[in-house]
């Protein structure tokens, strides 16, 4: 569907949900609000899609996992590990000339770590793509987060699958 309609996907993550036989897919789509509206509507048309939520504007927490293989020498290893610690990431594999870092965070955090480690030699990076969830409502009736409150409510009921 995405290819046919010419939508650009930055990342895609799929996995089981809490409901048996139902998967959750998280797409990060590039485009303006018209693009997003079309993507949402076309996803709804797919019979196997039960629900579509556009959480671009919402309070949401977004995380992805990355594994990075970083080149190390005996001199640079401790520097690398210090940076990894600062990001609260983990070293999960050590070899003579490289180590593997595992980091979980939002897109900016993962980008930042990768940039800081770049001078040492980033040999390989695998990123899972974002999974995201809207924040829960607190007692004040609004979510706590950078958007600080209500998400965009569409004026008309334009959703539905046909």
């Amino acid at each position, binding site marked *: *569907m995405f290819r*046919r309609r010419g939508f650009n996907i930055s990342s895609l993550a799929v996995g089981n949900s809490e409901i048996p036989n139902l998967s959750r897919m998280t797409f990060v789509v590039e485009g303006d609000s*018209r693009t997003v*509206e*079309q993507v949402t*509507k*076309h996803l*709804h*048309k*797919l*019979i*196997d*899609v*039960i*629900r579509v939520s556009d959480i671009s504007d919402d309070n949401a927490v977004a995380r992805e996992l990355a594994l990075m293989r970083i080149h190390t020498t005996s001199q640079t290893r401790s520097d690398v590990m210090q940076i990894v610690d600062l990001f609260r990431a983990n070293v999960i594999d050590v070899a003579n000339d490289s180590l593997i870092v595992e980091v979980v965070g939002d897109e900016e955090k993962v980008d930042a770590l990768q940039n800081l480690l770049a001078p040492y030699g980033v040999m390989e990076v695998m990123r899972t793509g974002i999974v995201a969830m809207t924040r829960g409502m607190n007692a004040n009736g609004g979510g706590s987060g950078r958007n600080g409150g209500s998400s965009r409510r569409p004026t*008309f*009921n*334009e*959703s*539905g*699958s*046909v």
Partner: protein
Amino acid sequence: MELTGAEIVCESLLKEGVDVIFGLPGGAVLPFYGALSGYPQIRHILVRHEQAAAMAADGYARATGKVGVCTATSGPGATNLVTGIAGAMMDSIPMVAITGQVPRPAIGRDAFQETDITGITLPVTKHNILVMEVDEIAQAVKEAFYIARTGRPGPVLLDIPKDVLAGDRRPFDWPESISLQGYNPPGEADELQLSQAVELINQAQRPVILAGHGVLISHAYSELKELAEKAQIPVITTLLGIGSFPTDHFLHAGMPGMHGMAYASLAIDSADLLISLGMRFDDRVTGRLSDFAPNAKVVHVDVDPSEFHKNVKATVPVLGELKQVLNQMLPLVERKTHVEWLQHIDTLRAEHPSLYIRQTDELLPQYVLKQLSDITDGQAIVVTGVGQHQMWAAQHYAYKEPNSLITSGGLGAMGFEVPAALGAKVGRPDKVVWSIAGDGGFQMTMCDLATAVENNIDVKFAILNNGTLGMVHQWQEFFYDKDFFATVYSGNPDFVKLADAYGIKGIRVTDKTQVASAIRQAMETPGPVVLDFIVKQDEQVYPMIPAGESVNEMMEEPITERIF
């Protein structure tokens, strides 16, 4: 009672009220055919090319409003259906295609006549299902028909492996009801949308109704007529909407778009409100979007929300099933007149006689269609191919009833004319059915004249024979410096001899004076007839708004003499 998979398919089809299937057997689908031969209640029409099966199912669906069913074997059989399926997708036609597939253990191993048809048809089906267990068949068939005919109709493909069809006797368990979590077709419109839409309608000074295929799908003809008459609003019908409003009604204001009537395009251009009913602002209708209806607000009623704001931004989108929405709207719409606006459109009609046929002794293709319209009194079902003849058929035939023009609009598949006409006649044996072809398109599917003969399907085939790939030739004339490369046909067969070869009557018409009598003779001859009209070459379809242009760049026919 325990049945094989194939028998379960047949029983399920009976439950869905299927009484005809168009198809061509093959290895993977043989078990289905084995069962089908024991079900005389389901008429099987054997075609000569699977593409004809799909297009016949399409024509059948358009003529009857029922779901058209076609079947083919795996591999090349299935891939031959794709054009017909894609056409049904583009024009929102309810269709179920059943294909055999290689046995389950062979799937994915490049088996003989294996293709991933569900993969191939993903973008051109509303839904498709690869049925991997006999127990899943009944549910799959019920789902397929439900999805095909509800909401915005469309084609659904069922791919069934040979061993699922053949083996394993299982009980036939027809599900009583069906409910799909991810599928919820809209019904009535939201009150707020409705009231905002009606407000715009009541306030408009120069409103225009654009009636599209949705009116036919929803059987909303009387509601449309009531709305138009109550508020005295002119109705413009798109190509696929033709028949939803009688062409001889004083409020009918033509067809819009690239080859629509000039007065329709000019009316849209000066309108202050477009009431779009079940039409999707296809680019053939709008031309350059930035210059389309520059002064109009838009009320867009559709059952598919993805059409809102897709091409044209709707001021008020109204989501709902058209017949229900119109019934909600009618009591709220005020009784009104728009005398000056209607007079303006009448003036446009007089100044831009887009349907004028030149007085000449030459045999013009437009003349043939006008004669046909007069002789059949607008009561026939007209099935066209794609190209110049299609546009002339849309322009010059005076359609009076719904579903009387059957044409491949969105996909524009040449060759549609022969098989779709067969399907239409099978579905509506009470109607006179004319298949209008160009010599180009006719040659694509003429092998299914055999199907007409074998089943005595009484379709009259009219070929507007100008020895060229007409519409492409026209574009080369206007836009490619008359570089007529690859558009002149010098190897055409003698179509009358071809008809004779199939054992049916062929009539050649070379003179304008012979047209009417040839048409009458064809209609008085029982069974299929082929008429070969040798028409003037180098005729252009006018008016024309070139692709990507607007009404400001519309080209009208240069008229050397006028009729008053």
